[in-house]
């Protein structure tokens, strides 16, 4: 083996080592649907939320969390068969909220968050809505989405997560799982 080839091989190995160190993601949060508040027809089924359908089946699940934003991934399944609603909401430490609404889904029945400010006044913070998210496996960047339609993401923390589902077709099983925030 010539000296030149060895040097090139060493350089390649070094580049690979650096790339290997940098390319691994760190999971900040992973949702197992333990805890939180569940209402309506949604059921927890081994680390996934499922709406089994049935006429006018609908439900919501929400939970307080505390994590930094980052990249975001989840998987959801279901079809728009008419009266279809499927969304994922993240709430932030500044009363903002960001909805991801599935392709064909009706909108969540909320326009934003009402809260009391430090002076005891009732305030309203409108939510931002990103629609047209295809079902299947989804990857987003919360920093990017927040920066595009909410504002500066500095000092931002995620304080809540919620899922809403509705379907009027008992053959239409809606499910969401593998919700992860990572960087």
């Amino acid at each position, binding site marked *: 083996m010539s*000296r030149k080839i*060895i040097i090139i*091989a*060493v350089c390649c*190995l*070094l580049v*690979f*080592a650096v790339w*290997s*160190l940098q390319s*691994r*993601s*760190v*999971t*900040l*949060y*992973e*949702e197992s649907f333990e805890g939180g508040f569940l209402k309506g027809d949604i059921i927890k089924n081994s680390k996934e939320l499922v709406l089994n359908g049935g006429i006018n089946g609908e439900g919501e699940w929400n939970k307080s*969390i505390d*994590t930094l934003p980052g990249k975001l991934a989840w998987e959801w399944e279901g079809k*728009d068969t008419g009266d279809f609603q499927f969304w994922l909401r993240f709430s932030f430490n*500044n009363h*903002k909220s960001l909805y991801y*609404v599935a*392709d*064909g*889904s*009706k*909108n969540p029945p909320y*326009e934003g968050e*009402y809260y009391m*400010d*430090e*002076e005891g*006044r*009732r*305030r*309203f*913070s*409108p*939510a*931002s*809505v*990103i*629609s*047209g*998210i*295809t079902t*299947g*496996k989804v*990857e987003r960047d919360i920093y990017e*989405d927040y920066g*595009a*339609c*909410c*504002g*500066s993401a*500095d000092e931002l923390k995620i304080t809540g997560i919620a899922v809403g589902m509705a379907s009027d077709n008992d053959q239409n099983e809606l499910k969401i799982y593998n919700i*992860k925030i*990572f960087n």
Partner: protein
Amino acid sequence: MKKWILLILILVIFSGCVAQPKVENQQNENETIAPIASNESGVKEIAIDSVIFTRTGIAIKTTDAISQATVTISGNGTIIRKNLEGTTSSFSHDIQWIPDTRYDIEIVSKEGTISLSAYSPSRASPLLIGEVKLEDITPENISQGWSNVKGSVKFSPNGKIIALGSDDGFIRIYDLQGNQAWEKKIAGNITTLAFSLDSRQLFVGERSQDANIYSFDTSSGEEKWKYGAAQVLGTDVKYPPAISRIKVTDNSMYVVASRYLKKHQYSLVSRIYRFDLAGNLQWKMPPTNNYLLSINWLDVSKDGQTIVYATGDWTNSLGTDATIYSIDQDARQQWSYSIKPLKPYFTSASIWQGIAVSDDSITALTSDGRAYLFSNANVSKTDSYEWKANIGTPIEVTKIPIYAYGDSAIIAGENVLYLTGYTFPAYYPNKAPMEHPNATSLIAYDKQGNFSWNYKLEGYSRGISISRDNKYVALAVGKNILTKDASSHGVYVLDLERKGGASSKLEWVYQTEGVAIASDISPEGKYIAAIEAPLKLESGEIIGEHRMIILT
């Protein structure tokens, strides 16, 4: 050499071990994220990344660039088709969408066909479409009651370009994506910007020893003319005169120039000018001598027939009234009305940016918080106003009178809007023990004098901008020197046609980390440009940055 190779191999293996995904929260499962789905041939499939319903349309982003695309949006019985030029991954359709309505979207491009549907929400979302980093500046200071960061931003009347003026004398022109067309530097601090109605000239006012008004060609940046207001106003090295307002009509422009001196006591000097658009001085008001009072603002009716302004004493030391003047375009006085000082709290009265005219009405908001509405036809007969409201006038808290500074006023259709500033003690050396209930607020009345709503902004806003159809109001909100709450900084948009109270009218808020110091809305209401400036907190930490953002 073999030792080196062995060492590198160990390093590679070790790096793989230490870089395993780790859970920083309460979870413990590790999994790397799979790549974006590919089709059977291994070619990446293009899909919709996002659909955002903005105030004036639907913005669509695809996961990868598409070319030669035709986008069709159908909903609510209408079909809109648009051909996209070139290659792009972000585009928008102008459409007045109806809330909670299904819109089907089909994109046919060289790369394939994408179809999906989306329901419009009840409220629009903001969308950042441009960002321009600006030069480093000394940050705003949360502990100071005054502002040391200034800037101006203005859309052209045709809605196609944005002018930006900075306190250090830079004038810049941008397109709607934030691409700079040209840049100029003048000697003074830029205080105000205005376009000619045909968008071909940009007028710039400055604070300097010359107090120049400049005209620039908007396409080339060439200086067409300038006029030094100091030649009749006088000047001073320490207290230079300034142009505080330029208002343009189809054939002329009206300018407010003023200065003050502080030696043993304050003295004030001000004047109104009318120019034609070629820079020829038509008249000065007063014709021979300057006002020895302050003038900060003027407004002109849409038909150009009525010009209103007010003299006063913002120093609260000269013992004078605030006097509102209505004149015609030839400087003939139609009427005047004097507002007495609000005693015992103030010795003088003044009006900051709180004077505005519509075709039939004139409103004034005094700095001490009194709002008036006049009928242009009735004042000369009755010598009185139609109605008056106390908006920010002093209230006593623990025997200390506090008031909300009266900042700006506009008449928008049937709405009369007032913008208030910080809470101040009436008068120094006291300190305000709490916020005035109406401080840093946008307050609406109808033209009959009935209170409509009050939106609490939490931070200081330096002016109201409104779309040509009086539908959308945009406000840049900055620091609050009393609460020091930085979470309220940002750009606020209200829809005046939306039914309900102030919260109902709030369309969206786009937050900025630093203070939002200026904003403007494009005439058709589609775009909003705003300037953010960094802010120094009490801890010494500096948050935010100096930049211009363009939103839709």
